[in-house]
């Protein structure tokens, strides 16, 4: 439709890419997302690190416990060896004792290297073992045996202390882990807080942007609606103006030219009686005047059918049908049924022009043999239908100015206009007008002009 094309062309497409706020918002959203991703990844990383630390601490303390208990076990074994050695007093050196001492010494020196913080206790142990070794080397079994319980007691004491110390160490490690966790927590909270805050700002900015867009869209929509309305108004005014213009020209022709010619004819008719010699000339003049009179009358009728004013709509439609029948190959049947004679002028003109245009179309294009015009009035509407038995057309493809003009007239009165046709199927055009008449939109906007 031309209406839509015109309004679309009049409204420039808004250039969204030029809006700076749009890009700012996009950037801010990206930053916010990056922030969330970074803090999430960091948190996961820190947690994994802590988990690893906790595991290594646990492993270290288990290992220490193991070393500790190994020392204890070795002392126990040495204890038993010594006891056995003491029970069978012999001067020769016992391999078991030597082995036990070596084992003990090896374990202590192993622990010495690995647990430097327990050196004070290990040192005591090492000294005791060394002393035993020395006593044993000096072949003083009695002394070895005598010293053994001291060693035993010291070892147990040491073991207890080591275990105590290791427990304290583990506790310290736990505390460190806890502190690290706390740090992570506060870091995460901070990141979340920042994300929340910036998200809030972003949401507000987006709202502002959306509201602005909405306002713009609404503004444009109203603008479009208004321009459509104005266009409609304009076209209906055009129809009115055309009708008014036609009527005044028709009246002018009928009243001035037509009546003058009529008077001329009346006088010409009397002339031969006065001047019988000039009869031939007078007759020629008369026939010219008659032809002129006819064509003036026809033009005048085409512009504004005076039947509408003289006889009403039904008679005017019947006349129109007979006129078409006389001047074309189509025989038109007009059935006006119960059509009221007191229709408003807009209705009369609309229906008359609708039928006129429809018959005109049928004559020009349809090659029909008959056409039927029906106008029926019911309590809530008036239905006018013009049907022919011609060659038809495809209404989706053919939409001439004639049909558009008919549609315009019908829509102006709030009615609906439909075309039913298909090739070789004849054509039917239907106008349904609301009844009683709606107040015309265009009439509210302008002073009523009476002609």
């Amino acid at each position, binding site marked *: 439709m031309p209406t839509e094309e015109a309004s679309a062309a009049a409204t420039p497409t808004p250039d969204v890419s030029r809006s700076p706020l749009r890009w700012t918002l996009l950037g801010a959203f990206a930053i916010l997302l990056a922030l969330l991703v970074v803090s999430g990844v960091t948190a996961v990383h820190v947690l994994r690190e802590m988990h690893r630390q906790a595991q290594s601490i646990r492993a270290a303390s288990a290992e220490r416990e193991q070393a500790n208990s190994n020392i204890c076990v070795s002392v126990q074994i040495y204890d038993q060896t010594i006891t056995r050695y003491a029970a069978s007093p012999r001067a020769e050196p016992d391999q078991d004792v030597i082995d036990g001492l070596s084992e003990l010494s090896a374990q202590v020196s192993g622990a010495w290297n690995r647990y430097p913080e327990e050196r004070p206790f290990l040192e005591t142990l090492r000294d005791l073992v060394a002393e035993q070794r020395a006593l044993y080397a000096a072949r003083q079994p009695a002394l070895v045996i005598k010293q053994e319980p001291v060693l035993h007691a010291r070892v147990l004491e040491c073991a207890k202390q080591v275990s105590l110390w290791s427990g304290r160490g583990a506790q310290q490690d736990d505390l460190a882990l806890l502190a690290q966790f706390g740090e992570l927590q506060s870091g995460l909270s901070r990141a979340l807080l920042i994300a929340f805050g910036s998200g809030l700002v972003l949401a507000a900015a987006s709202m502002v942007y959306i509201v602005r867009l909405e306002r713009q869209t609404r503004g444009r929509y109203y603008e479009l609606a208004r321009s459509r309305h104005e266009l409609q108004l304009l076209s209906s005014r055009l129809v009115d103006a055309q009708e008014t213009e036609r009527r005044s020209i028709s009246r002018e022709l009928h009243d001035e030219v037509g009546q003058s010619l*009529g008077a001329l004819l009346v006088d010409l008719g009397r002339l031969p009686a006065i001047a019988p010699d000039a009869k031939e000339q007078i007759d020629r003049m008369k026939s010219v005047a008659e032809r002129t009179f006819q064509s003036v009358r026809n033009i005048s009728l085409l512009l504004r059918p005076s039947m509408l004013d003289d006889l009403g709509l039904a008679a005017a439609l019947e006349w129109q049908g007979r006129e078409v029948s006389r001047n074309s190959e189509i025989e038109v049947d007009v059935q006006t049924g119960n059509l009221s004679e007191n229709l408003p002028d807009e209705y009369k003109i609309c229906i008359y022009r609708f039928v006129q245009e429809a018959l005109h179309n049928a004559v020009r294009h349809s090659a029909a043999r008959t056409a039927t015009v029906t106008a029926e009035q019911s309590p809530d509407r008036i239905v006018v239908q013009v049907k022919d038995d011609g060659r038809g057309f495809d209404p989706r493809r053919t939409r001439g100015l004639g049909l558009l003009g008919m549609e315009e007239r019908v829509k102006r009165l709030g009615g609906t206009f439909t075309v039913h046709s298909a090739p070789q199927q004849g054509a039917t055009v239907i106008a349904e007008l609301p009844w009683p008449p709606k107040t015309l939109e265009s009439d509210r906007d302008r002073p009523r002009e009476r002609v």
Partner: protein
Amino acid sequence: MKKVRVLLADDHNLIRAGLRRVVESQPDFIVAGEAEDGRQAVAMAESLKPDVVVMDIGMPLLNGIEAARQIRAAHSDTQIVMLSMHSDEGYVLRALKAGAKAYLLKDSAEADLARAIHAAAEGKSFFSPAVGKVLLEDYMRKLQRTGKEDSYELLTPREREILQLVAEGKSSKEAANLLDLSVYTVETHRARVMQKLNLHSIPELILYAVRKGIIA
């Protein structure tokens, strides 16, 4: 002999002047008055009680057909000669329904006006020859195109006689006297004629008669 008093009703001075000249050229006519619109015509018909009103159809304030109806309703003695630019049967039929006796086309008014006024004054019908011609052409074309039969062929000679007399404006009693029949028989014939021709009123019957050239 009593002169026929004529009231001229037309909204155009030139036409009225022309009509007046034609009427005044006849020795037995006299112009009783001139009206410029339908309302004035009704008022003057009321006060002057003319024998014949020559009335233009297209007049301001009240058109000729409505004015004719009102005058005929108030004074059935006053006859109407309708003047029109149109030979269409819509006009003729409505003029007849409004009570007009004669129907003249404006472009032949000068030639036929005197005859029309005479006929109307005597209560007879008169139509411009061109009107009958147009009506007949419309009728024949329609018959030809729709392939229908001319219903006039269905009428018996007696019925045709009755048709003509009724169309000429004769009452049933007058027709009965002329044909030496009873009024009842005439009315029965008339009803049968109207049924056969699918006519619903005397004006339609007159129109039919004009169309067929039975009366002029």
